[in-house]
């Protein structure tokens, strides 16, 4: 039998639709349900590619979770409804991967801490923010060499690549990202800034990372660590690129990144969308790999095994 884990995607917006396109190519995840709250172009699109669809929200799918053997849910809706979605699917033994800023579960930045979450079979992990996925690996690359007292990131995204949800809650971006720079990046204090740029043609996602180290930076070790980390991220986001740096100025270490997407649902400039969906899919895949190898045991289900 297939070792792919079956998945439901909640929220057929930019993120959910891009995620669907990526998941359909996965060796480890099989998307089955697309869940929306009304009929729409994107629901139709999901139906056209063979997905089961719900237009009555999560409640329309709950009766089918066990019979369809859904093991993973991706929530690409909003922080306001996430907790309820998560509770409902967790009760049925479904692992929730949260792409909203709700962050009720622990933060997950795949190359930094995904393995730990999988080992513990965390039932809800949060994917931080697009800016967090693009920058926290770099903060962690410095902090695993030596203590970082302050980590700051500036994410600049093309206007067309961020939807109304992010815009209405832009403070959530700065708060969630700052918190994750500390918790996952390993900086004592974190600060996040987001800039929206409307240039045409749209600019590619850019990210700047500044770390202030406690003692003089060990330049060779940091350069090596950063390059290793870039390669780790490139495994799931091939367009993740170190444009300049690390540059050293006293105790300041700076890196300048560009993130090109795969151009699945939105064009390639929307690397911010890709890094989020690719990280979420990578997270689900690792759970599937660990389950297949027997390293973790998924919640028992009465009609199986």
């Amino acid at each position, binding site marked *: 039998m297939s070792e792919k884990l079956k998945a439901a995607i909640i929220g057929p917006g930019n993120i959910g639709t891009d995620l669907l396109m990526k998941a359909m190519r996965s060796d480890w995840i099989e998307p089955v349900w697309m869940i929306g709250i009304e009929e729409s172009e994107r629901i139709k699109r999901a139906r056209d590619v063979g997905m089961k669809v719900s237009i009555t929200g999560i409640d329309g799918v709950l009766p089918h979770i066990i019979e369809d053997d859904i093991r993973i849910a991706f929530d690409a809706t909003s922080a306001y409804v996430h907790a309820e979605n998560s509770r409902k699917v967790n009760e049925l033994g479904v692992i929730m991967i949260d792409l909203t800023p709700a962050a009720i579960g622990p933060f997950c930045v795949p190359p930094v801490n995904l393995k730990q979450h999988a080992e513990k079979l965390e039932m809800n992990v949060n994917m931080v923010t697009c800016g967090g996925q693009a920058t926290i690996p770099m903060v962690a690359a410095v902090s695993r060499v030596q203590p970082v007292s302050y980590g700051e990131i500036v994410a600049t995204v093309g206007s067309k690549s961020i939807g109304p949800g992010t*815009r*209405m809650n*832009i403070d959530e971006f700065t708060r969630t990202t700052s918190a994750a720079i500390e918790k996952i990046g390993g900086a004592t204090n974190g600060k996040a800034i987001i800039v929206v740029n409307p240039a045409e043609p749209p600019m590619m996602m850019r990210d700047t990372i500044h770390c202030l180290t406690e003692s003089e930076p060990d330049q060779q070790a940091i350069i090596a660590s950063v390059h290793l980390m870039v390669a780790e991220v490139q495994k799931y986001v091939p367009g993740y690129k170190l444009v300049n740096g690390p540059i050293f100025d006293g105790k300041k270490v700076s890196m300048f990144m560009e993130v090109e997407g795969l151009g699945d649902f939105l064009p390639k400039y929307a690397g911010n969308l890709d890094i989020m969906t690719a990280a979420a899919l990578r997270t689900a895949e690792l759970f599937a790999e660990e389950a297949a190898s027997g390293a973790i045991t998924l919640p028992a289900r009465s009609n199986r095994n």
Partner: protein
Amino acid sequence: MSLRDGMHAKQHQISLEEMVNVATALDNAGIPLIEVTHGDGLGGASVNYGFPSHSDEEYLNAVIPKMKNAKISALLLPGIGTVDHLKMAHDCGVNTIRIATHCTEADVSQQHIGMARKIGMDTVGFLMMAHMVSAEKILEQARLMESYGANCIYCTDSAGYMLPDEVTNKIGLLRAELNRDTEIGFHGHHNLGMGIANSLAAIDAGASRIDGSAAGLGAGAGNTPLEVLVAVLHRMGVNDGIDLYKIMDVAEDLIVPMMDQPIRLDRDALTLGYAGVYSSFLLFAKRAEQKYGISARDLLIELGRRGTVGGQEDMIEDLALTMSRSA
């Protein structure tokens, strides 16, 4: 603007004593509203924009109790500052909050404008880099801010690029189309020497709030020089309630001695105005020129060509590194 936009020109290094002395003198000269914040607004303290000598809270707490008539304003850029900063400013006694977004991105300001209005602040929507789009687009974005609760909308010439006809056109359309009780404001930079002319055009077209800065202290070639604007208004017979000699003295005796460099239209500041680049990029580009040997003018022209917007200071070093590699 001396104590907020002026922070750019001072690399955010203004002492509490200077802050209080200047604010007190401006108050005494009859300036009704004085802005006190990090140059990039509340929460701007950062590697990217510069760490200030003191926190926003320390500056506000030092200045506000000393004011006799003047009200204090603070700036906030969503994406940099949050509603937490806004509430802090309100708790310090800030009267006016100006929520600034790029001129096409007003919808990131909803939670901040909404909160400010809810807690009863004088709430301004501040549309930056307004030269980059049409008057109709500015109006569309202004209406969004108005719908969130802003009682005043600014057309902000962050690059000092506008000429008077454009100011007339944009302010005129806002005045004609926004609610009658929504005030209109204009914020100028002097990068093409148009600070005074643009301010007069704005007043003629219906603006009731005009930003200025004593001795022009501000980003780029500075803001509209306040003492000059006041002198011109007095010659025109406008009764603005400001004491001309006192504001001249603030400029000459307090501000000029504080300047780290003359605020003048040098070739780099002129390039900002000519190429339409965010004024606070000036000193960053000059520093990148020193460090990487790429001329500040070339950097600024390229930043303009790429359509950079306010807040993208990090692009300057990145671009200088890239240009120095290919040079």
